[in-house]
């Protein structure tokens, strides 16, 4: 792996060296490394590009890293990764995609991740998207996430896209069974002429199920963002979604929340706020000695932390 790929790997997975535990590293469409453990197996799909990750029941405190890096300009790929998490397992899954495009053609990665989380299992899923390179070629990422939570299961998804992706359409669909809960935290920052769209649909199908969906974003310069969320309560459940955006310069942000209750005991809440940085926040930090620009950076960094 060359220096560019190593840098991407560090950005998306925080990896300086070969990770502990199970991993599968994909570089420019090829497998660049894999490790399995007694409890976690990784199998290459035969019908299409991608892998199956099978985590045995009762696996505790193990992690799986599946980073993807693209440094070849013009490469377009779709990858299908399926995660099967056994009963009572408790694992951390770290995915992420980094694109370095130093050429003139468009590089594009579409990752389709499906999670089948069995009863009472707990998953922490982290994905980061990052783009770099000074070529004119566009960097496009379209991650799709499909989540199936069985009774009592828990999945916490952290998704971050801070820099360098020209266009993204992020689709997440989830179904949550009785007593299961889903937490999603999304952070996005766009600049230049970038476009980011997120589209969440969560169906709560069982009693005592819950979802908490929190999106924080910053849109700078001429970038555009669209946030869509649909929460459907089919039982005695609790759903909350929150979209909080800072808009700067000539950017544009839209938020379209939708709530549907099909049960009298479904309790659904949506909060949305879009606005520029409050003048008093800038002033306070300036009275502490920061310049206006430094104050702005502090506020944005804190907001997306």
């Amino acid at each position, binding site marked *: 792996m060359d220096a560019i790929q190593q840098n991407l790997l560090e950005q998306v997975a925080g990896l300086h060296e070969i990770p502990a535990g199970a991993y599968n590293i994909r570089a420019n469409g090829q497998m660049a490394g894999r490790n399995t453990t007694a409890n976690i197996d990784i199998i290459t799909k035969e019908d299409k590009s991608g892998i199956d990750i099978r985590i045995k029941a009762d696996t505790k405190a193990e992690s799986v890293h599946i980073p993807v890096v693209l440094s070849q300009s013009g490469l377009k790929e779709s990858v299908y990764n399926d995660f099967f998490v056994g009963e009572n397992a408790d694992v951390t899954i770290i995915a992420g995609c980094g694109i370095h495009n130093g050429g003139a053609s468009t590089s594009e990665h579409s990752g389709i991740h499906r999670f089948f989380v069995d009863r009472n299992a707990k998953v922490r899923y982290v994905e980061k998207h990052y783009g770099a390179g000074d070529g004119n070629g566009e960097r496009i990422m379209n991650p799709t996430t499909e989540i199936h939570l069985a009774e009592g299961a828990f999945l916490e998804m952290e998704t971050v896209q801070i820099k360098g992706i020209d266009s993204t359409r992020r689709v997440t669909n989830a179904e949550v069974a009785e007593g299961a809960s889903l937490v999603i935290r999304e952070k996005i920052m766009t600049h230049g002429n970038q476009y980011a769209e997120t589209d969440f649909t969560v169906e709560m199908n069982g009693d005592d199920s819950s979802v908490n969906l929190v999106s924080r974003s910053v849109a700078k310069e001429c970038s555009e963002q669209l946030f869509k969320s649909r929460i459907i309560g089919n039982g005695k459940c609790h759903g909350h979604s929150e979209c909080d955006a800072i808009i700067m310069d000539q950017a544009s942000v839209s938020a379209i929340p939708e709530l549907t209750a099909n049960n009298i005991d479904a309790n659904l809440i949506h909060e949305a706020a879009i606005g520029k940085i409050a003048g008093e926040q800038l002033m306070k930090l300036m*009275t502490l000695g920061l310049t206006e620009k430094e104050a702005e950076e502090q506020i944005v960094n804190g907001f997306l932390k």
Partner: protein
Amino acid sequence: MLELKGICFSAEDESREVEILNDINLIIDDRFVAVTGPNGSGKSTLAKIIAGILKPTAGQILLDGVDITNLSITERANMGISFAFQQPVRFKGITVKELLSIAAGKDTTITEICGMLSEVGLCARDYVNREVNASLSGGELKRIEIAMIMARKTKVSIFDEPEAGIDLWSFQNLIRVFEKMHEETKGSILIISHQERILNIADRIILLSDGQIKKVGSKEEVMPELLGCGQPCKTLADKL
């Protein structure tokens, strides 16, 4: 030493000019100076003009002889002016430790933060990593605001109604905070307040009324004038 010369400020209200401050002349080089006066007399405006948040329509501000009238908020802050807001600002995602580090102008250690917070009656363990967001009460924010000014150690510190929202128990501590700040900085502390106990510790009291300085002097000299501002109703005047 802070010097205000002929400061005037007016604002537009429905296409009509409203005079908020008129010809304010002051020299501040004492330990504790209290600015008091009825609501709407221009106290907060005066503080904002000193901090650079508002620009005076006329007049000059000098800090140690240097004209700072046209300097920005940031430049004044770096020259040694601090300003505790009447209503502290909340920040999503910025922690108490980060805010205090920005105020101190350096990365602070847990021990230092602990010292700062305990001065204002907060236990560092509960607050150091808390975000300065809506989960903090008004009183907690107010104390953090005061801790930030302490961390800055500047030659001029302005507090706009520091006692508002702070319970009586901490009142004595607030006064101790001011005393300690003066010991460390040897600077001037300007406090906008209505509280008699704060007026009691002031070396000098400035009474503002209708945008003008009505009286400058000791508590004994200023209090009768203060009570004469506006026309209190007879029942209230009798009680006083």
